[in-house]
Every structure is written in C-alpha cells, then in structure tokens.
C-alpha cells in the first residue's frame, strides 16, 4: 500500500508538471525589457529572468491579472492551482522576505514550511543562483498587488498529503545550484545554466520512469506529456529534435522567432517561445544553442515501418491529402518556402511517436507570433471536418510518402489523442 501510494503520488506530481502546458501563456504582448545588464538594475534583471523561467505563463489565470495565480493545472488525480505571486500582503508575496522566496525556488518550500508540489518546476529552478533568485524576487515585488486568495488544490487522498510529498522528494529531489564545468567554455556553461535551470526544458523533454520521475533529466531524451497528447521530442536524437547538425543561427531563430526554414515551434513549444524564449538576448540564445548542439547524441535507431496499409486505405489517404492538404503543403509535400512547411523529410512528420503529427492535423495551429515573425501562417484544424479514420489515413499518407518511410497510424491512435478537439 505504501509503495502504491507513493508511486501514485509521484505520477500525480509529474502529471501535474506535464499538464501545465495546456495552459496558455499570459496574454501579455508587451515588449521585452532590456536584459538588464546594467549593474544594479535588479528589477529589470528579475523581469528578464522571469521571462527565462516563463513564470507568468503558469501564474496567470486565463484573462486574469498577471501573476495573480489561480490557473488550474488538471491532473488525473485532481487539480492544482498556481499561487498568487503579486505584491499583495494578504494573498500574494507581499510579506515574503528574499529568504522565504529562496526557500521556495531553491528548495520547494512555502513560507509556512509547506512542501510544494513539483508541478512548480523547482526541480529545475533549484539550479538558479541566489543572486538571480534575489533579482526575480525584487521584480515580483513590483507586480501590482492583486488581492486574490490562493485556491485550495483539489487532489484526492493520498495525493494531498505532505508525507507522500516528503517521500517523493527524498527519492527524486536534490536541491543544488548549478555548478559550472571548468573544462567547458563560458558560453556552454551559461547555456547549461539556462536550459537546466530557468528554461526547465527537461520538464517536458525528459523521459519519465515507471514512478514518473526523471532519472537523467539533463539528457533531454524526449518525453510523452501525460494527458497532454503531445510528445516533447528528444533533443539528443537526430531522428527527433536534435539540433547538433543545425547551423547555430537556426537554433537561435527557432527559440527567438518560433520558425526556421526547417522547423516550426508547435503546440506547447509554441507557448514556450511565445511566453519565454523570444524575450531572451541573442547572447543567451546563442549560449543555449551552443549547449544544445553539444548534447551527447543517442545512437540513431532505425525507424521501422511496423505496419503496412491495404491498397484502399492508401488510396483514400492520398485522395484526402490531395483534397485537403496539397493546396498548402504541395503535391509532393514540398511546401512553399517561408509560407507552408514542407512535409517531405520533416522530422515532425516522421518521428517514431506519431503524436505531434496527429495532434497538428486535429487541432491545427499557428506558429507563435513573435517579434521576428509577428504575423505567422496557420494550419486549419481538421478535428471537426475529418473522422478519426480519415485522419489516420491522411497522416499515414504523409508519413509513408516522398521517402518519409515512417510507419502508418491507426484510428485508435487518433481517437486517443483527440481530447476535447471535436
């Protein structure tokens, strides 16, 4: 029983971490503040770091006041609500000290000593330095006070107990500020600091074990986001989202603009770019790119073609493609440079887990509107227009055509990923 409780809790906590991506970023389109290099410009630096950590995306309810919390994070085990971070004395951080804040960010403890849920990615933020934490805190204290009491989480027993959280932390959480590797260049270290810490890339891009925890988060080996219907691809695999072979400028462009000639940030990643990375300085983006490009690569696994489609389904898939997709993506999946992405040779189409390709066809989407790409093009959603089976056939078509050589998908795959998209 004890084990069961524990593992269930871990799953809950982790699911919560992953589920937040359904949340959209705060509808804040204000221009970025300068990186705050000026010495002593603590508040400006804090604002910049908050962008790097995407704090407001989670801590703002839809249509609500920035930072006032109250955003629901649904998990299979109940709902977790984000906290009010504004300077309000009664319901926000108005009475917190910099030490209280440090305890939260670095050690996952609330002001009252309560252990916090790792849906708040303090497992990453623990790597943030004290100086940066103090800057973050200084900026948070400038958020206009909004009186909005924190909503109680509605997690079911036993997921709601501190004892279980304590057990989880004992197993999977070790507080510790980032330690630079003296053998690596400064730029690599800066990139590592941002990717592992505030950027919390591993919250999505790391695989989870049976207990829902990441044993090697920094490998960024790819993770399915439970309940999210998206797969955050491996940043270490050339078949998925490794950028080792990309020109450095393209990695920077992806994080800053949300599009490159060969990739588009979509779904949860579009939200990361929209709310966070587009605001980072070129120096920091370059540092992240250096680090990402140097990630140890996994050995390429051959993309096995597991199933074969019968002739009728193949024809139907091709017909659907010609009718619904070719207009934009081109008869041979060649796309149109700068406008419609090519589907031929596109890893978003061919990677082994088909979730993202299916999800894109179901829900459509726009690349994030960023300063570098303020008026993105959009892909229409097909969830209402096409049945599960039609979507399975057309996705199988794009995975199997033009040398893509990826396995077909079934209507059950599509049905599982539909969620609320109908």
């Amino acid at each position, binding site marked *: 029983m004890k084990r069961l409780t524990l593992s269930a809790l871990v799953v809950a906590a982790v699911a919560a971490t992953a589920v937040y991506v359904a949340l959209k*970023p705060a509808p804040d389109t204000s221009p970025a503040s300068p990186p705050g290099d000026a010495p002593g410009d603590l508040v400006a630096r804090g604002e910049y770091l908050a962008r790097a950590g995407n704090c407001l995306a989670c801590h703002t309810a839809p249509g609500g006041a920035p930072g006032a919390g109250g955003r629901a994070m649904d998990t299979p085990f109940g709902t977790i609500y984000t906290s009010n971070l504004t300077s309000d004395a009664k319901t926000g951080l108005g009475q917190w000290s910099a030490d209280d804040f440090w305890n939260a960010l670095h050690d996952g403890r609330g002001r009252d000593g309560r252990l916090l849920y790792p849906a708040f990615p303090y497992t990453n933020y623990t790597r943030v330095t004290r100086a940066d934490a103090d800057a973050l805190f200084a900026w948070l204290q400038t958020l206009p006070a909004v009186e909005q009491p924190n909503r109680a989480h509605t997690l079911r027993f036993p997921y709601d107990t501190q004892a279980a959280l304590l057990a989880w932390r004992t197993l999977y959480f070790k507080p510790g500020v980032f330690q630079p590797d003296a053998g690596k260049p400064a730029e690599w270290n800066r990139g590592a600091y941002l990717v592992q810490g505030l950027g919390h890339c591993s919250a999505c891009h790391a695989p989870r074990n049976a207990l829902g925890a990441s044993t090697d988060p920094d490998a960024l080996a790819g993770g399915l986001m439970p309940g999210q219907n998206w797969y955050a691809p491996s940043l270490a695999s050339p078949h998925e989202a490794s950028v080792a072979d990309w020109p450095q400028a393209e990695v920077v462009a992806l994080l800053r603009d949300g599009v490159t000639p060969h990739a588009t940030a979509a779904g949860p990643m579009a939200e990361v770019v929209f709310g966070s990375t587009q605001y980072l300085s070129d120096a920091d983006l370059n540092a992240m790119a250096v680090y990402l490009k140097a990630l140890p690569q996994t050995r390429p696994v051959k993309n096995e073609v597991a199933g074969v489609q019968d002739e009728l389904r193949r024809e139907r898939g091709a017909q659907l493609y010609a009718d619904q997709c070719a207009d934009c993506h081109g008869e041979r999946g060649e796309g149109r440079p700068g406008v419609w992405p090519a589907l031929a040779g596109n890893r978003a189409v061919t990677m082994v887990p088909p979730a993202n390709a299916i999800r894109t066809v179901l829900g*459509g989407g*726009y690349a994030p509107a960023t300063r570098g790409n*303020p008026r993105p093009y959009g892909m*229409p959603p097909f969830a209402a227009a096409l049945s599960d089976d039609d979507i399975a056939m057309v996705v199988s078509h794009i995975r199997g055509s033009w040398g893509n050589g990826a396995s077909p998908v079934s209507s059950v795959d599509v049905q599982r990923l539909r969620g609320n998209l109908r």
Partner: protein
Amino acid sequence: MNRLSIASTARALFGLLALSATTTFAAPGEHPDIDLRVKACTGCHGAEGRAAADGYYPRIAGKPAGYLYNQLVNFRDGRRQYPLMSGLLQTLTDDYLQEIARHFSALDLPYPPPVRSTQKASVLAHGERLVREGDPARDLPACASCHGSALTGVAPALPGLLGLPHDYLAAQLAGWKSGIRHAHAPDCMAEVARKLNAEDIQSVAHWLSSQPVSQGGKPAAVLEKPLPIRCGGVTEAAR
C-alpha cells in the same frame, strides 16, 4: 511604440479589460498576404468568412472590427469557449488579432437570402416584438436599442443580428444565460439573456434568422440613442 502596444502593455500590467472602443482601427492599408495567413479560419467560416445561413459556423465577414477583435480576444482568454478556435489563437498577439479582425471586417460580400421559417406566425410575431420593442413589463430592453434599428449592428463594437443561423443565435443566447459565453464586464448581453426564457430564445432566433439582411449588412456608424444598459467595451464608444 504605437497606441496599441501601449494599450496592451497597460492591460497586461494592470489586468484591465480590453476596451476595443479605445483602440483605433486604422484605415485599410492591409498587408496584401493577409488572406493567405487566415486560411486557417476560412475552412470553417466559409470562403472569405461568409458562412452560409444554415449550419452553425457564424459569418464573420463585414462585422464591426471592434466586435470581431473582442471576440478573438475572448476566445483566446477563455471568456468564450470553443477549443478548436481558441487553440488556434493561443500564441497570437493583440496586434495580430487586430489585423485579422480588420481584414474580415473590411470584406464587403453579399449575404445569402434568409432561410424561410416554418414556424407558426405567433412564434415569429413574439420574436419580432422582443427584438423591436423588448418587454417593458420585464424590464427587457429591445434588441434593436443596442443592435441598431436596422439590426445590422453599430460600429465599432456592436454586432449585427441578421444573417446568422438559427442554431448559432439560440446557442449564443443560451450560452450567455447559462454563463458559458462572457463579454467584457459589465456584460450587458448576459443581463439581457438572463431575462429571456427558452421560448423567447427560440422565437427571437427563428425571427432573426428568417429576415433578409438590410443595408447590405453594414453596421450603422453611430448609436441613435444611448445604450439602455452599460456594455463593457462598447459604452465608451457611444459617448
């Protein structure tokens, strides 16, 4: 920075409600490629946003730009619910939504003829009375007192009521009544809808959807009289 960015910054900082009435909709000067960029929309809303009179998808072409913009923000920020649309808008900025709203608003396309209603004359008469006169006994203002005497809306933020499918109209009114659809506060349409019973909603939706669109559907330029109730995002424009 232009007015718009300042307005959006202020909103972001203080959580103020978007008041479309305070933003200006610049003269056309559209980017020529905007129609390609909104192809993600026209699959549902019909070629150039002129959805047919049957079915559920509302027409968006030619509606007041401020109204369209408010709706896009509402879907993005959760005041209106339709996952397939809000999903598309998640990572779009206020500026871009303004441009998209202006684009659809500027389209001047003929309306299809109305659907012939098969309802009893008494149902339609009840609907017409509510629309034109309201029901003073229930303190229910006439729909026309806000939506314009021609019912084609009033620029920049009051939508027209003609050329919309029956099912869409009924669903919107029921949505406001039950708290699924929201507008900017104070939400006058919610106040109106709460006074309507199921029969009223059906009658109004049947009558409205069976009327030809007058004035080519163009919204009136100004309100004839002050609004009977204050409406968020609109009242400011009436002054």
